[in-house]
């Protein structure tokens, strides 16, 4: 059973790291529900 299975997830991606949509794809396969996802820029 995955750690994220059945959990609600808030994602803040980094434009120069891992962007939100890429994290979304990963956590969805682990059974999580994405309630918010965004990518931010810090540079």
């Amino acid at each position, binding site marked *: 059973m995955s750690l994220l299975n059945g959990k609600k997830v808030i994602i803040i991606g*980094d*434009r*120069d*790291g*891992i*962007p*939100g*949509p*890429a994290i979304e794809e990963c956590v969805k396969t682990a059974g999580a529900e994405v309630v918010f996802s*965004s*990518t*931010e*820029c*810090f*540079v």
Partner: protein
Amino acid sequence: MNSVIRGASYILAFAPDMVIHNGTTQTTERTVNPNSEYLKQIKDHLRTFEQVVKYLPNQTYIGNIHPDELAKYEQPWNDKEVEGFGRFGKYGEIMPQDEFIVLMQMCDVFDLVKLEKNFLESTKEKLSQHPLFDESLMNRISEGEEAQVVKKYVDEEHAEPLYNNGELIGCVKRAHDIDINLSAHVMLENLVSKASNVLALLNLIAKNNVNKEEIDYIIDCCEEACGDMNQRGGGNFAKACAEVAGFVNATGSDTRGFCAGPTHALIEAAALVKAGVYKNVVVSAGGCTAKLGMNGKDHIKKGLPILEDVLGGFAVLVSENDGISPEINLDLIGRHTVGTGSSPQAVITSLVSSLDKVGMKITDVDKYSVEMQNPDVTKPAGAGDVPLANYKMIGALAVKRGDIEKKDLQEFTEKHGMIGWAPTQGHIPSGVPYIGFCRQDILDGKIKNAMIVGKGSLFLGRMTNLFDGVSFIVEANKGKEEEKSAVSEDKVKELIAQALKNFASNLLAE
């Protein structure tokens, strides 16, 4: 024939009071937490103009220290001062805040920038010594105002205050009573962008032996928008800047794409010149007040000065092939498309795979100019070394393609990459900071080519979740070739001779 990069300029404007009053990290803090310790501490963490001039990455940005030389200095750089260089550089200059504020007034054609008379007179005197400010520019300066008049505009007329050394010395008035697109806040940001762009244009002309009259077209690629309530991003910064800089024969337009804007604009410029539409196209951009002190909280937390204290600007001249200057190869354009996907691997693959068209390996490109943010700024803020992260990704792709061995990854990042030196001003560090050095390195035979990469965070505009990016290759000039006609002169002679022979044979036959 391919168009060429004829010259480039790079400028910085020191803006410590704008860090406090106009940077969004600080303005947001003032709104949500007005009594915060951070706001109280800022003024003790600002650098002086002399420190900013002696800061290694700034001297690299204006062209006095090559990135290869900068890399020899151990990081951090904020505790080191470089001697022997002043505010003027090979490619541009670092302007102090007081002069920059007066330059903003020179760029204001709607009587919005009001400056206190004593401040104005003393700064005007300083500016009259500046080598690039001729009479026509100095004549743009208005009369000074009494201090209480300036204060009244700020207190009663919604004007945005302008400070120097903590003192109220002027303001930017709103340009409309109710239109938020012409509010004092927006007008200040736009006038800052315009003024820093104009300074880059003036330096481009002065440092590259170019006549203002030669310029046909200018493309502004900053990240601001000018317009009114009926067309919020109507434009046009480019033509407005060309007017102040005295480019009398130019028109222009704005190109936007977040941080990818400059690379998009350079591809457009190269295409316009190659197609013969214009002979000389300038791509330029000014800086951004909102990003001043963006990572200030982290810098102060670590006991550092606020390092995001300069506005950036640049200009690049793209011209008809002169047989000498490095060419922009429009056959090798990389682009992130709608279908590319958002993972970092997919992004880099889309930008670099243009090499496949001509069977080039990733290692066939001598230098990659990516997001050249200064790591001295980003590392203490937890954003890491941005250029290095990009080089690792390109290197990993090279391993995947079999262009290099995995063990050679680090060597790849050192040989084909560079240390970052540009201020975190969004579009300013994106690909373009190397173009000046790149031109020189290619002319000197130090490298044969370079890939310029621009990437943009389109999702910040909340219109799409997509990322964006484009790339192009700059390479050594292949020499001025005569346009080859479809049929050579010899062939024409041969065809005429054959036709006459046939004609004569026909006559004889009759």
